[in-house]
């Protein structure tokens, strides 16, 4: 749990980078700090592990003020992932991953075991990469190693500063998906900086939308999409917020609410989607294929029914316009 208790950061010359920010990140949550560049989100993140000093207020990690801890100890107990280039080029992948365990004085055997576990967690072959150097890896692989390194000493809290920002869209999406899977396993308390609303909706249990050092809205992704608190939030979220919201729902949700259509065998050339696919992608499949319906299948490929644009529209009205706020669980 990370608590921001009226935190303010004033740089020399009276620039308020962070202005009286107060909120709490619950244990096991991913909280996304979202906002345009210069809004103070990175500064706020860096105040947690004291890479930036706090001018006023207090940040508490699991109830303890981060000022009471020794800076070095504090940083070693917090996982830190930054945009690419954070890996040390002079060290092998194994050395990079086990930097913090080395600093903590773990023995060789324990470090090696940890290295294996972590590399498997992030989907890289431990033996293949052990003696390789960062420059020999692709951007996506480097970032996986970066995540593994942050998890090395099993810190309860992780700070991620636009970790997937420098990757191409396809790799970024894959890493986001994988990271969500990893998070289900490790259940860390994560503060995640992003400037990308789509990423925030996808990754966050909660979003803190910031502007000029102040919090504009602190809510669940669907609340921010459905009930933007002010003009700035609704502009930042964009006109397509209803469509964005669809990415928080799956075909399964739709099936539960309004059921699926019958399979019309006479219509040829239809696509199939998995029942766990989100509605945003389903909708774009419908639109791109110019198919009237897509066939919904379960994990075993069994046909369950069909979805049409009409279904999605009805669901949108029912679920998002009328039933809001919507829970994002599941």
């Amino acid at each position: 749990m990370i608590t921001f208790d009226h935190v303010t950061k004033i740089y020399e010359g009276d620039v308020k980078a962070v202005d009286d920010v107060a909120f709490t990140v619950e244990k096991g949550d991913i909280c996304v700090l979202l906002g345009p560049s210069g809004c103070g989100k990175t500064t706020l993140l860096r105040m947690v592990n004291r890479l930036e000093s706090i001018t006023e207020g207090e940040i508490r990690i699991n109830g303890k003020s981060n000022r009471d801890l020794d800076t070095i100890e504090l940083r070693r107990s917090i996982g830190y992932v930054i945009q690419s280039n954070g890996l040390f080029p002079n060290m092998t992948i194994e050395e990079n991953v086990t930097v913090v365990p080395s600093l903590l004085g773990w023995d060789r055997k324990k470090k090696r075991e940890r290295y294996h576990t972590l590399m498997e967690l992030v989907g890289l072959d431990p033996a293949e990469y052990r003696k390789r150097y960062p420059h020999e890896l692709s951007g996506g692989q480097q970032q996986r190693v970066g995540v593994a390194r942050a998890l090395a000493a099993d810190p309860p809290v992780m700070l991620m500063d636009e970790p997937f920002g420098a990757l191409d869209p396809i790799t970024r999406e894959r890493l986001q998906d994988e990271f969500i899977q990893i998070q289900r396993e490790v259940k860390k308390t994560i503060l995640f900086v992003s400037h990308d609303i789509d990423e925030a909706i996808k990754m966050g249990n909660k979003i803190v939308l910031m502007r000029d050092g102040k919090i504009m809205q602190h809510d669940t992704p669907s609340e921010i999409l459905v009930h933007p608190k002010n003009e700035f939030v609704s502009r930042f979220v964009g006109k397509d917020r209803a469509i964005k919201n669809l990415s928080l729902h799956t075909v399964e949700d739709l099936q539960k609410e309004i059921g699926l259509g019958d399979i019309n065998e006479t219509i040829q050339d239809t696509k199939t989607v998995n029942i766990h696919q989100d509605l945003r992608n389903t909708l774009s499949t419908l639109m791109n294929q110019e198919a009237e319906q897509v066939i919904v299948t379960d994990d075993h490929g069994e046909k369950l029914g069909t979805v049409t644009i009409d279904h999605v529209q009805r669901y949108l009205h029912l679920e998002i316009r009328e039933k809001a706020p919507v829970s994002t669980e599941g």
Partner: protein
Amino acid sequence: MERKKFVSLMVRYGFYALVIYFFVWSFQKNYFSYLFKETETFVLLTRQHLELVAVSSLLAIAVALPSAVLVTRPRFRQTEWIFTNLANLGQTIPVLAVLALMISILGLGFKTAVFALFIYSVLPIFRNTVAGLNSIDDRLIDAAKGMGMKPHQILFRVELPNAAYSIMAGIRTAIVINVGTAAFAFLIGGGGLGVWIFTGIRLFDNSALLSGAVPVTLLAILADYLLRLLEYVVVPKGTRPSANA
């Protein structure tokens, strides 16, 4: 591409041919006679020469490395220009002026020669070390801090290894130049192979001249080669320039 390769090969082999021709020619004229007639003197002069280079280079490294590390610490950032100017100054003053100046303080001989060579070696090492340390990506330092490294751990585990290539290049340049410059030590009674070179010049004795000059050249080439080997050992694999190509 093929053409480029061809030209570079031609230049290289042309150069080798010239070197071989030179050796054949000088042997025929018996220009290396001193090496065989006065082998003992040759060994002595070579030893003096090496001592001059070794002592002055080690001193230069001992001074330039720590001061370069010092001026790149955040606390001393502002003082960088002072050190850089000092080192530049050392490089600009002519050798003879430095020698003349130091003779009045340290007298004639080995010490003065070492001092002059030291002054000349400091700059390349200092400047390359500063450049190497400054070229390290800030985000790398940031990551190191964020991982909880202490300042000395950041220096020894991240900064110095990543600047090693640049630092080694500076040391190599300094020492190779040093081998050549050390010939001037003769002028103030510092000994070394310069003794034969300058004697040869004064007496129009090609034999003496070449018996001094050729070994100096070979020493410089040897030093360069050995330091490249050392570079291979010292510079971490992941940071070599070829690695990022």
